């Protein structure tokens, strides 16, 4: 019997480059992706083709997007591509994949996880109001559906995406009322260090800010106590700058604090995790070649730690070369070393960005008791604090057990970070000491009527 094909999970920048590299070596990977078309979140395609060209959709990254889409299209008859498919469980070389209403159990030999990232959110009052989107969600609405999240929009939070999305809305003709950055202005001095490492990215960010300002968008730094207000839908934002309280009317809010890695599948695959200070999260351990602690399992792109789309392309290729090497196939060691050098350089730039957009570590001490932390299960900060003290808890899975935090539809993907921060503050320890939520299948909801079917080889 021939060896099963390698499995690539995700068809974003990392997954596409991984698949391409495997194909070049003569392998035929199965590429499984939740989206209808390749590109990942960053180079996502419109659901229905419209009049916008690549330049309008992807701005300065149009060339990269087109090259990635083109590269994947060229693989069409040399890979198996399952779009709109969810890998909902992994175990011992077998993946359970929900596709077209049935669950297919697929054996694989070599697994490249390119699962990407989603928005990191720390709950603020009103964050569950209709009209409030994550920054990534606001971007997807525009990119994939040609929709704006409101007619007078405020963007708040932190991270490079904050300015990018605001600028994209501005360019699309939407009234952007304000950009509210939780990071203090002084932190931006770190970007000067970044000029040497990634001048184009830093300069582009500066241009975004300048254009926003020129177009009358209010830019504020070091904002805190953000609150989103409205009856039935968001109608305004309130925040504080020093001692001064401020307010703006709006009908749409994009909010987010950088990104967080999607790591559930790495957990189910048995990968060892370690706390990563830069991402302030537990991440699958991997070496510079993208190998995890589990033989035959590789991880690339933002799912391994936030590093952006350029790094994802490099890491996807690097992961595939590692897989080839482990299979005894030609694996281009010089190219691999070059990729690792480039990735290390991007890593240094990530340090700069993290310093320029620091995590608001004071959030957990300040979040109001009545703020809902877990929107799936409707668990408030008060309920979490009470649970910690009533049950003398100091571990995140125990907090989950008694409070339901992380038990809902999102399985902790959106509330887990906030819950860990809260637990850390309530028990007087660092967030790395409270543990991490153990993943369980299914990684996302699946229909009860999902019918099993063995995939034909």
């Amino acid at each position, binding site marked *: 019997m021939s060896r099963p094909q390698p499995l690539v999970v995700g068809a974003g920048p990392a997954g596409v480059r991984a698949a391409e590299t495997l194909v070049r070596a003569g392998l035929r990977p199965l590429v499984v992706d939740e989206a209808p078309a390749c590109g990942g979140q960053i180079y996502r395609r419109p659901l229905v083709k419209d009049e916008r060209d690549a330049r309008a959709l992807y701005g300065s990254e149009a060339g990269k997007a087109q090259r990635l889409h083109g590269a994947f299209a060229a693989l069409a008859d040399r890979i198996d591509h399952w779009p709109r498919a969810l890998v909902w469980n992994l175990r011992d070389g077998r993946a359970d994949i929900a596709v077209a209403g049935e669950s297919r159990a697929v054996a694989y030999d070599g697994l490249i996880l390119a699962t990407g990232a989603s928005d990191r959110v720390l709950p603020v009052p009103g964050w569950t109001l209709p009209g409030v989107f994550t920054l990534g969600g606001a971007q997807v609405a525009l990119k994939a559906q040609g929709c704006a999240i409101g007619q007078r929009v405020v963007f708040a939070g932190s991270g490079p995406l904050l300015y990018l999305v605001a600028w994209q809305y501005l360019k699309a003709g939407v009234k952007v009322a304000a950009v509210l950055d939780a990071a203090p202005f002084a932190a931006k001095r770190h970007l000067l260090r970044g000029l040497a490492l990634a001048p184009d990215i830093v300069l582009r960010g500066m241009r975004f800010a300048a254009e926003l300002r020129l177009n009358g968008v209010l830019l504020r730094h070091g904002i805190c106590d953000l609150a989103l207000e409205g009856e039935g839908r968001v109608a305004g934002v309130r925040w504080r700058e020093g001692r001064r309280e401020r307010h703006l009317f709006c009908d749409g809010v994009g909010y987010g604090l950088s990104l967080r890695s999607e790591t559930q599948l790495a957990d*189910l695959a048995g990968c060892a995790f370690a706390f990563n200070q830069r991402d302030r999260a537990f991440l699958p351990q991997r070496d510079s070649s993208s190998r995890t602690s589990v033989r035959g399992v590789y991880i690339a792109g933002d799912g391994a730690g936030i590093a952006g789309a350029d790094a994802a392309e490099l890491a996807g290729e690097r992961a595939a070369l590692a897989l080839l090497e482990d299979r005894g196939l030609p694996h281009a060691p010089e190219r691999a070393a070059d990729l690792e050098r480039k990735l290390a350089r991007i890593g240094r730039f990530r340090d700069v960005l993290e310093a320029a957009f620091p995590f608001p570590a004071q959030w957990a001490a300040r979040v109001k008791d009545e703020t809902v932390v877990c929107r799936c299960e409707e668990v408030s900060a008060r309920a979490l604090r009470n649970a910690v003290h009533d*049950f003398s808890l100091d571990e995140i899975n*125990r907090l989950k057990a*008694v409070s*339901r935090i992380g038990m809902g*539809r999102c399985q902790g993907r959106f509330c887990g970070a906030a819950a860990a921060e809260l637990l850390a503050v309530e028990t007087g320890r660092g967030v790395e000491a409270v543990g991490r939520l153990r993943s369980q299948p299914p990684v996302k909801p699946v*229909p009860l009527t*999902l019918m*099993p079917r063995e995939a034909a080889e």
Partner: protein
Amino acid sequence: MSPRLHVDVAVIGGGLVGSSAALALSQMGMRVALLDRRYCGAQASGVNYGGVRRQGRPPEQLPLSQRAHAVWPRLKALIGIDGEFLRSGHLKLAMSEADMASLEAYAAKVADCGLDLELLGHNELHRRFPWLGDAVGGSFCAGDGHANPRLVATGFAAAARRAGVHVLENAPVTGVARNGAGFALEAGEGLKLTAGTVINSAGAWADRFAASFGEPVPLRRIYPSMVVTEPLAPVLTVNIGMEGGGIYARQVERGNCIVGGERAEALADADFSRPRSDGALAIMSRAAALFPGLAKAQAIRFWSGTEAEMPDRNPVIGPSLTTPGLIHAFGFSGAGFQIAPGVGQVLAELVRDGRTTTPIEAFSIARFAAGASTDRTTLGSGAGEEQEPQRRGA
């Protein structure tokens, strides 16, 4: 915390049995240490299905079960929370005439035990429970119900802590031996205790302690497998079981339906387990067929855990035969949740009085002593084996 602790009773294992015993002993004025290798209530007590069910238990368990039955409505007073206990009633379904005959035979056998079972034929069943799919009949026990195991188990341990019990978590017992009139224990990193009495309520880990006192037992680990739906409008008004196995299901107040059946499997670290994909899918399709109201629901979460099962599926409860001062209480075979609060009281009486008012002879470890006959020996993972419903669910 003192690294050398002198207590009257050391309880090994902070599950529901150990925690409720510790609380009861503390309320009797005894000094108690409750030790758990990880976290109290995190294993079988906290990860079981959550059925609070007397129906289906063998007659020898019913006195103990009735004793526990009186505790459940008083949880709020006892541990400060109600544990989401709902006296919903427990409906056991028959899918064939033969299964209906078994339900009738059971009802006759336990007629004097106070369960007040109500046998329902096909038409009456569907008139009372119109949300049910196809079934031949059923047996309804109105006094049974369900609760949230994660809260109840942890709540007993928290209440014990508030009552003055030394609750020592992440403190695996590495040594326990007779020492003069009592026992010397070593736990965790450098923790030393002396105790007059030791209770072995270590669940799936209890066999190693029993063996260390010369009482090997044929305990094996089993792993329940549960599927949870997203919150739904009320569908299942009662706790559901099935004669002959296959499925058990309940809907919590928040709206999520919990559906169990099949078995999970251990991970590389055998203290952790995870539902099997094929098993979970089988449970899901059974649920969608039996409860048409769930057919459009999404499954959002699976869970599993580690339980201990004895070959005859009765627990081991009672004094050691080899070692004075040692009392065993383990091996609840997937049916410990409902009776555990009663077992805690019984254990406390055994410690204080040397005897208990509730008959427990059937659960003596003597039945596994060398020379005693057992109906079968089973060692292994148990994965994939169908459970018997009368032992499940609680």
